């Protein structure tokens, strides 16, 4: 198909020119996350682009079938490794829906706050890397610095920067540390400063605007038919956000806007992500005001591990602990699809349980997979340099796309 198209395009070319085929990747400075583009080029113009993914396939879904429900949580960390807390929350929510339980209110707020912090980190990484690949490396470091303040908070809460494994079926591992709200609000001050720097260096920079605007355009119809979600879809002008359309956690109790673009080009994607960082801060601010005191795990011995003093102190506690660790949480037979809004779009978990302690089937809808599918379409007719910015805005995360 691609061959035929290239041949057809070749006929329309200047007779003295020749189509050059070029393999970009899998190990190329811009293909972070390991991906390969097979390009057909006329000079620098892209005639055809074939995207090859799968270099980071680890068999995530199959691996999950061998583990108890709670053992799957660390695997979900490795999906979108920039915002693992969203994956954690998504998986836990899906499992809880199968169990037909609700995690305690405080736990849900914690998940929401941590998801938004992760989303901010995700967006900062994406924007910073896009700037770096466009040549403005300093801005990338400012973005990473902002991300680092967020990672410090995440470390304080979960004990790890990336491999957080914070969620459990029916709760989270531990409560928020002392002085969490002040710390987050303090970090927001730094982040706002970084954002105004980025604004001055990128959003108002003529070179950057010209690099981004009008490039990688994806129309509303194409975006919908490719199944693209998240900032990509919103940049094309569709205000679809799982947090609004199908509120999970307590997103219906907070007030936030869904930014959309008009052109569907890279600059809109950039602006949408930029604005989403602001909206995330709004959400966190409100959630910090609303969060109640209380337990962070459901009080049910069939789901939550017993207190350590019971495990070491009495036989019931020990038995309970042993059964939960070895056999896992028994989730009744059934299937469920739970979507959350990940950094790149709708992150869906489809879980099937057969009533044993392990998932019968786990299927993940990775948001950037659909963006990658549309990438070839977005880039046809543009230039090699545009691959870099567009790919940066699609923000493929290898761990999530290839699973």
């Amino acid at each position, binding site marked *: 198909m691609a061959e035929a198209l290239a041949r057809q395009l070749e006929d329309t070319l200047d007779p003295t020119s020749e189509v*050059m085929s*070029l393999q970009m990747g899998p190990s*190329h*400075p*811009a293909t972070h996350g390991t991906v390969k583009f097979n390009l057909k080029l006329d*000079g*620098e113009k892209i005639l055809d682009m074939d995207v090859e993914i799968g270099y980071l396939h680890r068999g995530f879904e199959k691996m999950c079938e061998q583990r108890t429900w709670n053992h799957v949580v660390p695997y979900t960390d490795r999906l979108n490794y920039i915002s693992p807390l969203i994956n954690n929350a998504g998986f836990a929510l899906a499992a809880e829906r199968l169990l037909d339980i609700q995690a305690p209110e405080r736990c849900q707020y914690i998940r929401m706050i941590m998801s938004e912090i992760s989303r901010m980190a995700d967006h900062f990484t994406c924007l910073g890397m896009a*700037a*770096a*690949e*466009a*040549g*403005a*490396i*300093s801005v990338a*470091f*400012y973005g990473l*610095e902002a991300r680092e303040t967020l990672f410090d908070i995440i470390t304080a809460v979960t004990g790890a920067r990336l491999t957080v494994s914070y969620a459990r079926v029916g709760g989270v591992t531990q409560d928020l540390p002392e002085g969490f709200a002040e710390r987050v609000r303090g970090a927001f001050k730094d982040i706002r400063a970084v954002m105004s720097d980025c604004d001055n*260096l*990128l959003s108002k*920079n003529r*070179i*950057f605007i*010209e*690099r981004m605007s009008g490039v990688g355009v994806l129309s509303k119809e194409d975006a919908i038919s490719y199944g693209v979600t998240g900032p990509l879809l919103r940049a094309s002008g569709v205000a679809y956000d799982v947090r609004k359309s199908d509120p999970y956690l307590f997103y219906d109790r907070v007030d936030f806007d869904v930014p959309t673009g008009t052109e569907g080009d890279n600059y809109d994607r950039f602006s949408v992500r930029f604005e989403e960082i602001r909206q995330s801060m709004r959400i966190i601010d409100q959630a910090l005001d609303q969060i109640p005191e209380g337990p962070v795990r459901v009080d049910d011995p069939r789901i939550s591990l017993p207190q350590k003093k019971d495990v070491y102190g009495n036989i019931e506690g020990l038995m309970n602990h042993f059964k939960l660790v070895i056999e896992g949480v028994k989730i009744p037979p059934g299937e469920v699809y739970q979507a959350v809004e990940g950094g790149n779009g709708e992150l869906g978990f489809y879980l099937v349980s057969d009533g044993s302690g392990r998932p019968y089937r786990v299927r993940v809808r990775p948001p950037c997979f659909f963006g990658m599918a549309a990438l070839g379409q977005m880039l046809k007719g543009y*230039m*090699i*340099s*545009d*691959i*870099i910015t567009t790919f940066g805005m699609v923000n493929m995360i290898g761990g999530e796309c290839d699973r």
Partner: protein
Amino acid sequence: MIDIAISAILTVFILANIMNLGGLLLWVERKGSAILQDRIGANRAALLGKLPINIGIINTLVADPIKLFTKEDFVPPNADKFLHWMAPILAMVPALIAFIAIPFGDILVIGEREINLQAANLNVGILYILGMVSLGVYGVVLAGWASNSRWALLGGIRASAQMISYEIALGLALIGVVMTFGTLDLQEIARAQGHMIGGVLPGWGIFYQPVAFFIFLTAGIAESKRIPFDLPEAEAELISGYFTEYSGAKQATFMLVDFLESIIVAGLITTLFFGGWQVPFLMRDGLHLPGDIFYPLPSLLVTLVQHGAFVTKLAFFCWLQIMIRWTLPRFRYDQLINLGWKILLPIALANVLVTGLMILIFQA
């Protein structure tokens, strides 16, 4: 005989200085960018492990070159071996010898002898430098071609297109300067900037040719292939562009050439627009302050101060280029060519026209 010896000494002096400055610029770039980006930057390889403050200068100036020059010199199997070997030399030599026409001081009087502080006093200095800088592109294009790699080829093609687009604007910007000063001799141009406009403003080229300065700065950065015009190497797009297939000493050569070219650009900007070695109020015989105050100074001291002024200005423009390099994103290929042909070229032409008109009006 002594004249030849003096020329040789001046040439060696310049060569040694700009080579060292090239190395230093690499360090400034590393440390400067680190400061700009809130990083620590180069801080390894302390001298005998004893320096209390390690700022990485040993690392950049000694350890890195040793590492690069002792690395395997890899030549791709299907590369054109001769051209692959030739390309770095072709890039390096013009960059090294272009600087000899730039004056770095006025006349130094030692005994009876008057030494013109310029390695080669060419009466077509500007043309010579432009010619040499243009020759540098052969090295880049041949490196791209000889490597037998598509990335390198794309880099080479970009380099040639970029050079053509920018050298015309560069040359036209200089024509305005040449018209103002009426000479192509860089030493004469530097001397012509010694007077004061209205007694306070130094008579530097930038005050006569501000537009030419901005065109020249833009085109000059494009000439030295640095961000925002680093398309021939564009590491995010073309891996390393024309020197993708180079390693070790040859790659170090290409990196050094970039710095040498920015030194040349800085040198030209200094000489043409910022008075070269001129220091306001300082003449060959001493300090002439406004109000007819005159302090006589020895020739050697004046020369040293003027040379110091030249080096300071040169260093400032090198630094400016590095700061620009770490601030801006890069252009796209077509945008860059549009900028060259559709924006810079007309402005440069208009500048020549206006300069001509001004000369006509003021001479009449």
